[in-house]
């Protein structure tokens, strides 16, 4: 690695990139100070500080119920998408034959198709199934969107796994299931955990499908925020956003720790 040398053009470059960095971070972080404002306005910077908007969040059922729904859906999606995605990744990695390519492509398709299109289709079908405005509707739809991330994460783990270890386990008396449980599963656990976190985050952040599936009886936190923005000016939005940011940030840090510790292994 050659060391960084300063020159006038490099100073210009670094300055420009500093501004880009501010552009990237600023709008992400601005909700944090706004959530502690003392007035019912989005004046920036705030004139005084309070935690009243957090209080409001936890006392207004519109807010805390949508947050609770988001967490419950996210956890269910994490479980469902992780189990199904891991199963798919294992089948794709151990299977042979021409079906693997198309199957893999199909598994990843929900990542490529624009969300608004998937949303319309799911909305129409779920209307017929009576799955809108309900817990399971959100869970199924979000699982579809989260599945590709789990498949990718677990597949990466499986590709890094030495297949000879499984063969060795067979020769030592472990049948397919015993070898999978005792050898494969513990060794791909970091990938599965990564996939689970991605699945949770995908569900927790998902908005466009949720927009169609939400209604007066059930809406997720991002939809509650969206509808508050269009309806009334209330810094509770900032408080909710800050908590959303903190939750996602927490899981991102966990993800980072997993990645780092895996690389160190």
């Amino acid at each position, binding site marked *: 690695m050659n060391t960084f040398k300063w020159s006038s053009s490099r100073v210009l470059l670094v300055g420009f990139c500093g501004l880009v960095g501010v552009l990237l971070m600023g709008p992400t972080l601005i909700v944090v100070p706004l959530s502690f404002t003392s007035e019912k306005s989005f004046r920036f910077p705030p004139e005084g500080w309070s935690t009243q908007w957090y209080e409001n969040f936890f006392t207004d059922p519109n807010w805390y119920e949508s947050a609770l729904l988001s967490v419950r859906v996210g956890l269910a999606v994490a479980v469902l998408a992780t189990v199904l995605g891991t199963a798919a990744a294992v089948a794709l990695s151990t299977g042979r034959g021409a079906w693997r390519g198309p199957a893999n492509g199909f598994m990843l398709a929900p990542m490529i198709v624009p969300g608004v299109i998937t949303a319309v289709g799911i909305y129409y079908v779920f209307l017929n199934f009576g799955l809108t405005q309900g817990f399971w509707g959100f869970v199924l739809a979000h699982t579809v969107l989260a599945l590709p991330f789990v498949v990718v994460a677990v597949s990466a783990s499986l590709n890094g796994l030495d297949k*000879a270890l499984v063969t*060795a386990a*067979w*020769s*030592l*008396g*472990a049948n397919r299931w*015993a070898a999978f449980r005792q*050898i494969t599963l513990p*060794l791909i656990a970091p990938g599965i955990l990564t996939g689970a976190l991605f699945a949770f985050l995908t569900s927790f952040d998902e908005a466009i499908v949720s927009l169609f599936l939400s209604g007066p009886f059930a809406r997720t936190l991002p939809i509650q925020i969206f509808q508050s923005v269009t309806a009334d000016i209330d810094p509770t939005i900032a408080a909710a956003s800050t908590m959303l940011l903190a939750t996602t940030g927490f899981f991102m840090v966990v993800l980072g720790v997993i990645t780092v510790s895996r690389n160190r292994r």
Partner: protein
Amino acid sequence: MSQHGVALEISGLTKRYGDVTALAGVDLSVAPGEFITFLGPSGSGKTTTLNAIAGFIEPDEGTIDLDGRSITGVPPWKRDIGVVFQNYSLFPHMKVSSNVAFPLRQRRVPKREMAKKVDEVLEIVGLSHLADRYPRQLSGGQQQRVALARALVFGPKLLLLDEPLGALDKRLREGLQLEIKRIHREVGVTFVFVTHDQDEALVMSDRIAVFNEGHLEQVATSQELYEHPETLFAAQFLGDSNVIHGTLESRGDRHALRVGDRAFEVMDPRGAAPGSEAAIMIRPEDLVVRPVDRESPVDHDGKTTPAEVTEVIYLGGRRRIVLSALGQEFIADEMSSVHDHKPGDSVVVTWSMGQARLVSTD
């Protein structure tokens, strides 16, 4: 062990991958307690045979019997065959003791007995003090010994070793070769050892099975194979050799190989028909190199040829003389230097008739 006197019986083993024939009818018997080595270049079928014995691949044709019972179609985990892999394949998330206990856990061996067996086998491979380490904390040689212990602890009917020393450096290899020999003697299990290293095969084996292009060239003891190779491939793959190609001529009891206007005598045509293409093989240490001038003229007696020295290489205990004769290259190894040869010297190369072996060339 077995009432048949045969531990492993392979017959007609064939495996094809598309148009490629990996194994073309391999037949082999291995005696109980024997140490047999599969020797051959990569792609010769030795590892395919091993994988078929272990049950990792299914042969297209042929049968494999272990202790008189067919194991064709039996999954690997029910075969009771220990396998030591090239890259050890120790389970990275388990300590040495858990790795070694793994096959016992699969067999639901009681805890107390399991601990005893693990201790015993770690004792045999000399790693008792490392039982609580993880594989990544061990050296390559130590990992290899753990792999050996793990494959032996459940009392396998057969132990397969797939190029187990391939990843180690030369000095460590030589130490472990003797170590594996010792363990073989100690446990008395039948060992099948796969390698592409001829020296390793010579050092370790009771018998060597030479593989080439999916079939067996020859199965014999090290000495037999070195001194009486049956095929050109076996002769050339095991040890260094000088090979002269020609046509077989027979007059009564006397046989000779004709090469242009020269005829080299051979003792035993080994059933080869007169007029067929054949070759004689002479080991480098069986060639005697003399200066051409003073004492003797070049006699054309069927076991002598004039040659020119092209290079002299010092190899520690011996000298290797590279020669040019009959339009090809010869090598001769001398233990002591009676004559001082230099590149460009004209010399005479002689051998005794018993040391020129006829080998088939197909």
